[in-house]
């Protein structure tokens, strides 16, 4: 017995105690204060706290020594376990025994467990203990019966002292048994799961769910089993000792006749049905048959070139199939399908597609082997001029040729570039950019980069904007312009690198432009860095503005570099309509200077983020003329006025307006003051961007549920549940009855019994 085993036992014994297992508590009068106590559940009370956690050896002995009610049931098993216990106990060191003896003498509580220092390691003990030892240490509280048993045991085991292999502790054994029994019980009870589910989901439950009695109607035909009846011998046997009237016999004969007739019909039907096979079935079988034939033919071919004619016939058949228009769209069936719009159903469409595909395959076969299309073409790409060779099949198509052309061009470009690099030119001049841009334009259908003309415009534009935005002194103009151009340059440089990394371009970055996102950092800065007072010179101001713009441009460039520059809608900003086709001078100014950099950067960065540019354009167009902020403010103002105090002139026209002599002066106007909500007391008085409706319909609140009630998930669902009226005025009798049938119906005056095992409704 090794330490690990014992430890395992120890641990599990503790767990079982954790379940509140106190089966052997308080049985013996010993003090257990020495035991290593550890509460298993934090909240278990003292009554359970007294559970003692001993080592397995102790618990084994103890549990077997406990005089319990079940002692009568103890048999050889118990004896065996006792033996083991003794065996285990005998493994204790003699020192322990001596110590225990000492303690006993001193009147201190004893226990068999080796002293455990900490909860973890258990002292492995080797020496054996005899039965006498144990008896010496069992206190009187153990009861005489168990002692008598011990005597008996001793007598029995005298003479033979072989060591019995240790078993798991009894506690653990019981525990394992319980777990197993629980598992079985769960399984057994789980069989009701379906029934329970069905009953829960049932629209109506009519109680009693089961008929309590057996089959109530027992007629003569039901008295015997049908199979038995057919057996004449059994029939005689079954009818023995029974008296039947003539009517009964006739009824019985008729019944049998009917059954036979029914069976015959069923048989015939089955026969007929068996013959009917689906299309798919036939198809599959046909294919199988063909395959089998093919294999057979191959085998034959391998063995010798016999049956040549047959294979020839097959070839002919295939060829015919190829040549025919069978797999084109021209067959009657296909035409029908097209004409009657049947291709909208999926099955037909699939079939049609399959047919066309097959047709295409065959065509390809006609035109030549399709395997060597890609293999030989690749080397040709490298030498520029040899590309013009006769292509056949699909390669002869225009788009394929174009694609090839494009590929060739690309290669040429890259080679050129390499050569240039070899020459030592860095190739970042305007001309180069222009070249590349032009080339890019010529590339396939999808264009990410507009031409260089635009990029040039962009630089110029930005400079002009700068000049317009800041009416700086003339001396500064040059500087600013140069900066702007520089900025534009740097941007274009970046854009260049971006284009070279085009493969990494992620379309996801050009995310939804409608989503508003305000960058708090960009808003927060600006003013805080440079504080300009009114008395600072104009020059200083301009310079500061310039710096700011430069910084921002840089930041924007950074953003472009990071691939983060997203189009953002500034809510505080009103976008002006711009004539896209008009000349740049006619463009309206941005509202303030700070925005100019955005335009500039984006224009500069056009080639970097063309998609983004497009998005911006889109946003601009979508919100063209949308002066949202002002509109909102106006609306709010209007609401406040509408809901505020009002004065209404209620003077009746012509009332009291007498003329003539001695007429008193007509009274002033009758003005009624209707009290509304004071603008200061409004809920939204301090909320700048919110309008709260102060006159909610209080009357209708009575007729609306406060929130969407439980089983419903959305308001619409709930509304829908209320929409159709139930009553007799609005629907037919049958519908009303169906709708108003209660969920649970209990038959009056009947005992509703619990469900019982074979459950069938």
């Amino acid at each position, binding site marked *: 017995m090794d330490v690990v085993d014992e430890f395992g036992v120890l641990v599990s014994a503790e767990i079982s105690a*954790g379940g509140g297992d106190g089966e052997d508590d308080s049985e013996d009068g010993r003090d257990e204060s020495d035991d290593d106590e550890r509460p298993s559940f934090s909240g278990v009370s003292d009554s359970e706290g007294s559970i003692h956690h001993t080592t397995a050896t102790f618990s084994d002995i103890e549990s077997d020594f406990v005089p319990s009610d079940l002692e009568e049931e103890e048999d050889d098993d118990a004896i065996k376990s006792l033996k083991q216990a003794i065996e285990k106990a005998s493994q204790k060191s003699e020192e322990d025994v001596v110590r225990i003896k000492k303690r006993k003498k001193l009147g201190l509580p004893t226990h068999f467990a080796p002293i455990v220092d900490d909860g973890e390691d258990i002292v492995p003990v080797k020496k054996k203990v005899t039965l006498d030892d144990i008896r010496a240490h069992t206190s009187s509280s153990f009861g005489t019966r168990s002692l008598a048993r011990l005597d008996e045991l001793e007598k029995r085991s005298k003479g033979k002292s072989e060591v019995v292999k240790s078993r798991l502790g009894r506690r653990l054994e019981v525990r394992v048994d319980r*777990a197993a029994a629980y598992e079985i*019980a769960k399984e057994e009870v789980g069989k009701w799961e379906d029934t*329970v589910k069905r009953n829960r989901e049932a629209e109506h*439950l009519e109680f009693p769910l089961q008929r309590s009695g057996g089959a109530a109607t027992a007629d003569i035909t039901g008295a015997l089993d049908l199979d038995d009846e057919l057996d004449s011998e059994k029939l005689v046997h079954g009818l023995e000792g029974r008296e039947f009237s003539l009517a009964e016999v006739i009824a019985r004969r008729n019944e049998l006749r009917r059954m036979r007739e029914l069976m015959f019909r069923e048989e015939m039907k089955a026969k007929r049905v068996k013959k009917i096979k689906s299309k798919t079935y036939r198809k599959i079988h046909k294919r199988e048959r063909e395959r089998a034939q093919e294999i057979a033919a191959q085998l034959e071919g391998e063995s010798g070139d016999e049956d040549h004619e047959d294979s020839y016939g097959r070839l002919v058949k295939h060829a015919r199939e190829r040549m025919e228009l069978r797999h084109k769209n021209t067959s009657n069936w296909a035409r029908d399908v097209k004409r009657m719009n049947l291709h909208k159903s999926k099955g037909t469409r699939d079939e049609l597609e399959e047919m066309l595909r097959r047709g295409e395959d065959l065509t390809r076969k006609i035109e030549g082997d399709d395997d060597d299309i890609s293999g030989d073409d690749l080397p040709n790409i490298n030498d520029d001029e040899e590309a013009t060779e006769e292509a056949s099949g699909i390669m002869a198509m225009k788009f394929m040729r174009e694609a090839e052309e494009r590929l060739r061009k690309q290669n040429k470009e890259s080679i050129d570039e390499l050569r240039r690099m070899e020459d030592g030119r860095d190739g970042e001049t305007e001309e180069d950019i222009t070249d590349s841009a032009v080339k890019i334009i010529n590339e396939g259908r999808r264009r990410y980069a507009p031409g260089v003309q635009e990029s040039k415009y962009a630089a110029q534009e930005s400079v002009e904007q700068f000049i317009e935005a800041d009416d700086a002194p003339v001396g500064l103009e040059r500087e600013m312009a140069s900066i702007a151009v520089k900025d534009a340059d740097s941007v274009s440089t970046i854009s260049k690198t971006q284009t070279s990394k085009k493969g990494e371009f992620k379309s996801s970055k050009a995310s939804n432009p409608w989503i508003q996102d305000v960058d708090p950092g960009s808003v927060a800065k600006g003013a805080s860095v440079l504080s300009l007072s009114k008395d600072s010179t104009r020059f200083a101001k301009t310079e500061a503005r310039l710096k700011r713009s430069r910084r921002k441009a840089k930041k924007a460039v950074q953003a472009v570099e990071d691939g983060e520059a997203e189009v953002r809608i500034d809510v505080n900003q009103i976008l002006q309509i711009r004539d896209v086709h008009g000349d740049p001078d006619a463009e309206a100014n941005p509202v303030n200077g700070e925005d100019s950099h955005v335009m500039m950067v984006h224009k500069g960065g056009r080639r970097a983020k063309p998609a983004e540019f497009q998005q911006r354009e889109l946003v601009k167009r979508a919100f063209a003329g949308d002066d949202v902020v002002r509109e909102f403010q106006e609306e709010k103002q209007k609401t406040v006025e509408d809901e505020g105090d009002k004065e209404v002139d209620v003077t009746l026209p012509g009332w009291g307006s007498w003329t003539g002599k001695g007429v008193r002066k007509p009274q002033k106007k009758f003005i009624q003051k209707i009290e509304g909500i004071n603008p200061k007391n409004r809920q939204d008085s301090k909320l700048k961007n919110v309008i709260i409706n102060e006159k909610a319909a209080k009357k209708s609140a009575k007729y609306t549920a406060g929130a969407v009630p439980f089983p419903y998930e959305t308001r619409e669902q709930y509304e829908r549940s*209320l929409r159709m009226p139930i*009553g007799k*005025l609005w629907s037919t009798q049958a519908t009303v009855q169906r709708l108003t049938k209660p969920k649970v119906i209990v038959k009056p005056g009947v005992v509703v019994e*619990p469900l019982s*095992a074979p459950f069938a409704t």
Partner: protein
Amino acid sequence: MKVKTLSRSSDVYLPARNCEVSRLPRNLDPDLHPFERAREYTRALNATKLERVFAAPFVGQLGNGHIDGVYCIARHTRRLNSAASGSGDGVIKYWDLSSKEEVASFTAHRGIVKGLAVTLDGNLLSCGMDNTVKLWDVMETDHSGGPSKTFLGSSGFTGIDHHRSNPIFVTSSNAVQLWDENRSKPTADLSWGADNVNTVRFNQTEQSIIASTGSDRSIVIHDIRSKAPVQKLVTLMRTNAVCWNPIEAFNFAAANEDHNVYLYDMRHLTRSLNVYKDHVSAVMDVDFSPTGQELVTGSYDKTLRIYRVNEGHSRDIYHTKRMQRIFCVRFTMDARYIMSGSDEGNIRVWRAEAAARSNVKSARERSKLEYEATLKERYKNMPEIRRISRHRHLPKPIKTASETKRIELASIKRKEENMRRRSKKGTMPYAKEREKQIIGVAITEVENKV
């Protein structure tokens, strides 16, 4: 000039035979019946109001009740109108429910009668604190000759229940013991740990399963096939009673000392399926309706509440001025009435549906009631209707107690929330309402799988 007169064949509107009811032609054109929603809402509102008007839950009390408090009630499993009750002075009485009269009365035990159960042939088993279980013939009215059988135990019995189809019964005392009616000694001991077992209940559907509750705040599931306890659940407070759902074999309700009733699935005891709140004192007994759709609870706060199984709060509350602490409640076997036994010795019969009447109804009346019930169900979430249908006049002590409880709970919650706010994130997780009361189970599911 030709005058066109309206003419209608009498076949259309007259019944074909004398016995038939004449047809009421109805035009279903929606234009003729506008405002359908408003009209139906009003009907629902009126129906709700009428329901409250006609709510008369109390049917009456049985005879003159007992001299001492009533601590157990048994209903006959086959007959609707028979019940028996046991009281604190050891007297058992048979009752005829239809006449609300006493059939027989006799002293069965010395001391309190703790449990009653009905055997397969309709006889009565009683157990008491005088260490005996006694079998009584219900057909006899004179029991001066003593019981037809006596089973002796080693200590006072606290509960008893009979198997649904076999002549075996289970008792709780300091142990859970399984008895055969034909033997004098218990055939098996199913106990697990607890010093004292309060109640024991057979599962009526899966008939080999037993649930018992111990004074060590445990609920133990036993299986009589393996003759052993199989699972144990320990809760924060003691469970006073359990009851199995009659149509859902694995679910049982446990009435707890902490004012709540919990619904458990015996297969997964680590969380309860539902918590039934509202009582303001310990729940003493719980019983499922035979339909399995509702449950009734009797509480130490002198009220009786009815819950729908899938809702967390009570549908109705019953109380009378003179009714004391309730110790036992039972539905009748037709799910229409409830019997409650309380400390002051009366057995009261209540309607399960306060506004329902059991008289024979004409088809028209029935259809109207059904229609109204549907409307009430449909518009139950409208504020006015909800208010009226939920309104109950409560005794002042209950009202104040529930108010106090609400405030206390809110305060505890607030405090917890404050602590949570000030402690490190994640150190104070939210306790789930359905798992709060559970300390642990003996056999965890992980272990069971291995």
